[in-house]
């Protein structure tokens, strides 16, 4: 039979082999042909594309680029076109250019040398007047992952970070993480750029720079302090993606800076000592308040971000607004009912929610709902539903019997999975009250004949073994059956058979001794060593021999000890240590780059770190701009304005100069709220730069407002005494003219008052009362100081409109116990504020004043030799004016205007050959003018 078969088969086989071989050859040939053809086509096609790229018609280039991009999109390799494509990087057609960019970013990494050819184009692009081109040049430059250009990238990012277009600055923020991932060694420099951009006040930049912060230096929360309030206030206007990033970052920030609002509840009654009552930091409140409206965002990620912020930061009572964590989901119970069309993962999550919401009041509704789920066609979901019923049964005693009965009914289900899952759950439930349920155990014992799922079989065997005393007749019979099928069982079942045998041996050795020995012998030669080990171990433990030790006596106790009932646990347990809504939270495993949410601090760090010097609160700067270049135009105008001033009448002011001053203007505007120290340092640098600029402009004497500001606070400001320590009974009060604009009212002079409490007790309710002023004068009081502890100083700012006179402002300074009469009289120089004029304007104004009425006496200056720097420092510290022009310049001009009425004050100092100088003051206000001349002369002669 087999022979004839093989004979016949042989012939057939041969034929078949021949046939298939021929076919194979043919196919191969064809394949080869196709390969060759396609290869030719490939070369040809690419030649075609190269030709198109080399043509001088934009339409052909565009068509070629479109085809290449389509290849990239499909994942086809187009890298051999690199040289042909890179040539077009400077193409005039913007769409071609953009597609070349797409190509470059894709392949630059592979063709680093060739990619370098394109760099100069981008460098040129970075200087383009069109902000979109500047931005996209930076985008591409920073996306080319070629290490050699790291220094170029760094420079470009730094420059773009102070670009006048916020869009370019945003692009700079985006470029920071790119460079960081390319070369982590640049981190320190990049952090400086991040610090600078964090201070940016536009909403456009905020989200992107926080993103860069999160990727580069998420642990540097100290950089956030000064920007915290600004970020909170800008938040609502930031685009939605930025909102998510900022909210997540601020959540972390808040956890390091504020106190746990819920700590009182849990800790105070445990600690004996009295705690200070909890008061929420206003900044903490600010964050909660400003994020709340975002719950109405259309973007689910934003809503989730706010929700997690409230979950992690809000007092318990307020968490409710984010939809009701904990018991608060209860009214929404029915929203979690499951439809058969829901995706499986949604079903499982809904089931979890329903199970957690179950309580005595709603359990019957929930159980009824669960029953419908058991009939679902989705088997995984059915299994999960059965487990959920089990959990409800363990959690809520009242329904345990109902659930158990229902589950037992499922044991006759045709679907084995349903039965198996039920067995497992029933086993756990029975452990709670086994004595009442011997009928169920009997029922389960019968199932062993039919159920094949190993886990279920194991569960039944364990149950019978554990409660063998409740089923004394059935148990040995089950063991008999199991001994028969032992070798065919799964490992978990085998272990439970051994277990059952051991327990029966201990309780009913008469009937089961032989069976047990048989099972143990089978197990001894099992393939699995766990089972062999177990058999050996159990034999030693239960079968008494002369060698067996003391344990033998306790075997029964060991095996048949009362076991605690298992707790049915949620599969979603133990994930609360991750920040809600994060990827790590979802996976319940730490993802790369996950930032731990810190624990609340024991005591709050200094809240004053968030104080910002600028008094007016930050407001969104974004204004509606018309014209194509928007902000650019506006900024350029101011730029031009200031550079004109810097170069004064000098017509030959070169381009590089105006460039320089543009940068200064930019940065000066931005740094206003930086720390005082830094400010000084930077400003000094700037002054130097300015000086150089002025040297080239020979006769420049008029200075920009920026310079004036730079000098005014740095000179030694004179402090005056308002209240002596002795008259004030321990309260010393000094004041000075801060020479800063008084922001609530520009027509007032800012007076900075410093209170020092030298008494042994606190001073309370410091405020001003009963001001007695000359007509027209006005006063703006400082906000009342509630409490001033012993030994501390407090500084406040008040505004006084002196009506351009040197009359004193009188008022009472009141504490909670005393009143003091005090008065402030301004030196004339403090009544004016610097302004800037071009030289021509200065001369024109001066001419008008002269010809009008208030021409002043010309005093010959008593100083010898040239107008020394000493005198100039006097000018800067006293009359609010400017730093010196170079010693060679014979004429100095200073311009200011009075604070109250804005009337111009022009001061001219002309130095004469051989020493001496002439001082002229032009002002409409006679009194001011004379007093100023007198004061200046007096000061100069000192």
């Amino acid at each position, binding site marked *: 039979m087999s022979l004839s078969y093989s004979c016949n088969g042989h012939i057939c086989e041969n034929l078949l082999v021949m046939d298939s071989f021929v076919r194979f050859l043919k196919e191969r040939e064809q394949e080869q042909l196709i390969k060759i053809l396609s290869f030719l086509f490939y070369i040809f096609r690419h030649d075609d594309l190269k030709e198109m790229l080399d043509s001088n018609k934009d339409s052909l280039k565009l068509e070629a680029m479109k085809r290449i991009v389509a290849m990239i999109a499909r994942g086809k390799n187009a890298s051999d076109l690199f040289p042909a494509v890179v040539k077009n990087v400077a193409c005039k057609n913007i769409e071609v250019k953009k597609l070349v960019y797409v190509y470059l970013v894709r392949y630059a990494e592979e063709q680093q040398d060739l990619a370098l050819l394109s760099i100069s184009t981008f460098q040129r692009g970075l200087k383009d007047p069109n902000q979109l081109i500047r931005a996209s040049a930076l985008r591409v430059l920073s996306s080319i992952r070629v290490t050699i250009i790291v220094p170029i990238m760094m420079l470009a990012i730094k420059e773009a970070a102070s670009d006048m*277009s916020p*869009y370019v600055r945003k692009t700079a923020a985006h470029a920071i993480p790119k460079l960081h991932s390319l070369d982590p060694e640049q981190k320190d420099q990049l952090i400086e750029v991040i610090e600078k951009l964090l201070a940016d006040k536009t909403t456009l930049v905020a989200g992107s720079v926080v993103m860069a912060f999160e990727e580069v230096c998420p642990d540097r929360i100290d950089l956030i302090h000064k920007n915290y309030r600004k970020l909170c206030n800008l938040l609502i206007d930031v685009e939605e993606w930025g909102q998510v990033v900022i909210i997540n970052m601020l959540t972390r920030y808040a956890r390091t800076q504020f106190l746990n609002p819920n700590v009182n509840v849990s800790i105070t009654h445990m600690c004996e000592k009295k705690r200070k009552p909890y008061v929420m930091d206003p900044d903490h409140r600010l964050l909660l308040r400003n994020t709340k409206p975002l719950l109405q965002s259309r973007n689910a990620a934003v809503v989730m971000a706010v929700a997690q912020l409230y979950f992690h930061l809000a007092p318990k009572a307020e968490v409710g607004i984010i939809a009701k964590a904990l018991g608060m989901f209860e009214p929404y119970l029915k929203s979690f009912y499951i439809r058969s069309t829901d995706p499986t993962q949604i079903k499982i999550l809904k089931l979890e929610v329903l199970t957690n919401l179950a309580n005595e009041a709603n359990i019957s509704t929930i159980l009824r709902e669960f029953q419908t789920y058991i*009939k679902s066609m989705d088997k995984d979901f059915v299994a999960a539903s059965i487990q959920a019923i089990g959990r409800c049964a363990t959690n809520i005693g009242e329904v345990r019997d109902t659930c158990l009965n229902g589950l037992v009914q499922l044991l006759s289900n045709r679907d084995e999975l349903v039965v198996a899952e039920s067995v497992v759950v029933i086993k756990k439930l029975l452990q709670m009250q086994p004595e009442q349920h011997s009928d169920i155990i009997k029922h389960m014992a019968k199932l062993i004949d039919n159920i094949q799922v190993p886990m279920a079989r194991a569960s039944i065997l364990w149950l019978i073994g554990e409660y063998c005393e409740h089923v004394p007749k059935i148990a040995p019979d089950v063991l008999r059956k199991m001994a028969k099928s032992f070798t065919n069982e799964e490992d978990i079942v085998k272990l439970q058979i051994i277990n059952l045998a051991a327990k029966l041996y201990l309780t009913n050795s008469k009937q089961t001794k032989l069976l047990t020995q048989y099972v143990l012998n089978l197990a001894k030669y099992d393939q699995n060593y766990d089972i062999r080990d177990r058999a050996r171990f159990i034999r030693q433990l239960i079968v008494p021999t002369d060698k067996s030790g003391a344990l033998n006596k306790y075997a029964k106790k060991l095996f048949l000890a009362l076991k605690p009932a298992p707790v049915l646990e949620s599969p979603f347990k133990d994930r609360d240590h991750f920040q809600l809504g994060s990827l790590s939270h979802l996976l319940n495993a730490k993802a790369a780059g996950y930032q731990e949410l810190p624990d609340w601090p024991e005591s709050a760090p200094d809240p004053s770190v968030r104080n910002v010097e600028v008094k007016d609160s930050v407001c969104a700067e974004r204004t509606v701009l018309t014209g194509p270049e928007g902000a650019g135009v506006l900024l350029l105008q101011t730029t031009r304005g200031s550079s004109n001033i810097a170069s004064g009448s000098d017509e030959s002011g070169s381009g590089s100069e105006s460039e320089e001053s543009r940068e200064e203007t930019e940065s000066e505007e931005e740094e206003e709220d930086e720390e005082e120290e830094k400010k000084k340092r930077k400003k000094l640098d700037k002054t130097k730069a300015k000086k150089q600029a002025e040297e080239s402009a020979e006769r420049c004497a008029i200075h920009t407002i920026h310079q004036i500001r730079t000098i005014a606070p740095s000179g030694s400001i004179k402090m005056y005494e308002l209240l002596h320590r002795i008259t004030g009974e321990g309260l010393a009060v000094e004041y000075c003219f801060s020479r800063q604009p008084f922001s609530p009212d520009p027509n007032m002079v800012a007076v900075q008052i410093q209170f020092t409490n030298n008494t042994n007790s606190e001073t309370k309710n410091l405020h001003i009362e009963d001001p007695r002023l000359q007509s027209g004068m006005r006063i703006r009081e400082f906000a009342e100081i509630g409490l001033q502890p012993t030994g501390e100083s407090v500084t406040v700012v008040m505004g006084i409109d002196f009506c351009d006179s040197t009359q004193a402002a009188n008022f009472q300074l009141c504490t909670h116990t005393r009143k003091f009469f005090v008065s402030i009289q301004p030196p004339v120089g403090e009544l004016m504020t610097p302004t800037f004029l071009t030289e021509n304007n200065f001369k024109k104004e001066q001419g008008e004043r002269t010809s009008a009425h208030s021409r002043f006496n010309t005093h010959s200056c008593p100083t010898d030799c040239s107008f020394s720097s000493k005198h100039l420092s006097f000018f800067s510290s006293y009359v609010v004016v400017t730093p010196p022009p170079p010693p060679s310049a014979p004429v100095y001009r200073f311009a200011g205007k009075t604070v109250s009425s804005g009337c111009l004050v022009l001061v001219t100092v002309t130095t004469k050959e051989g020493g001496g100088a002439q001082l002229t003051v032009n002002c409409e206000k006679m009194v001011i003018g004379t007093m100023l001349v007198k004061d200046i002369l007096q000061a100069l002669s000192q």
Partner: protein
Amino acid sequence: MIHSLFLINNAGDLFLEKHWKSVISRSVCDYFFEAREKAVEPDNVPPVIRTPHHYLINIYREKIFFVSVIQTEVPPLFVIEFLHRVAETFQDYFGECSETTIKDNVVIVYELLEEMLDNGFPLATESNILKELIRPPTILRSMVNTITGSSNVGETLPTGQLSNIPWRRAGVKYTNNEAYFDVVEEIDAILDKSGTTVFAEIQGVIDACVKLSGMPDLTLSFMNPRLLDDVSFHPCVRYKRWESERVISFIPPDGNFQLMSYHISAQNLVAIPIYVKQNISFFETGSSGRLDIAVGPKQTMGKTVECLVVTVHMPKVVLSANLSATQGTYNYDPVTKILLWDIGKLNPQKLPNLKGSLSLQSGAPKPEENPSLNIDLKIQQLAISGLKVNRLDMYGEKYKPFKGVKYVTKAGKFQQRLSEWLLVHTEV
């Protein structure tokens, strides 16, 4: 953040890839394919898949899987929301978001993806801004462009980027100024076997199509704003005014957009427009069953129910159905086990009915699991919640716009259960 994006169709073909950082081999998608295989239904693919070095976050929309590759911690919803925005942008640009349109417009798609993300972080996602950067294709323009070689790409920064209303482009001009609002409500409901409501709620959206010149400032008010329970708005809506006055005040984007969405919860009684009487039973012997479904109007507020479709997911053992319908057509797909009965308009005088027999796999036991029944319908000129727009006012512009409001109610996830009590009849 988002490292790469792969678009994969239902058949498992990867037809587009885009990388925002260094290139990730498309073999990473094998993990996705594995999960896809396991899930059987495309909806059941887990949204986040973990691989040894990456995380894949995906959405399934319009029969396309948008699979994004993530390497570091990021809120998953952030990515999911962004992917939906990508799909919506394609829809907005090409009329529909499908494999064909994406393949046909692959260059524009690529340009869009390039603008939408920079280094994996969203850059420009507002439709109005994107449209200034990359013009949507029209037949005329693509013809002109082929001839002249001019481009679809804007040369200047969209004005919106720098303004405090980034969603609106500047210089909008129309000869006919019109503003249309569609109030669309969907009923999500679960009914039990007898038709009693187990749970019902309304998900509503107001879609707008605003073509108004200049910078119009609109205010939309409702007759009964208190109905709205849980609202979310397009960024153009001023939250404060809603909080204090319950009016929707906004400067609209140009073109189509979703103004707001809302939710009317189960606490308010939700009207159920139709009833379904059904009887699906299987015989213990003979491998067959019987089906009888009848549909009738319930609370329709006097309006006509249209586009009525009943879908039944049958147990696996049902091989075929031999039925007759008094109205509409039916189709049973033996592969997906879905019975679809397309009824059309519901005529209250002559109620539609579908009945007949089902044949099962021979020898198979009577199925234990219950079929479920889904209903699709549409009612024009009715917002089932009773929500009514009171008026629309325009400020800031002189002309008189043409205004229109349309209402429509649809069935959302509208399901009737065919299951019975289980635990009550305990026999043990």
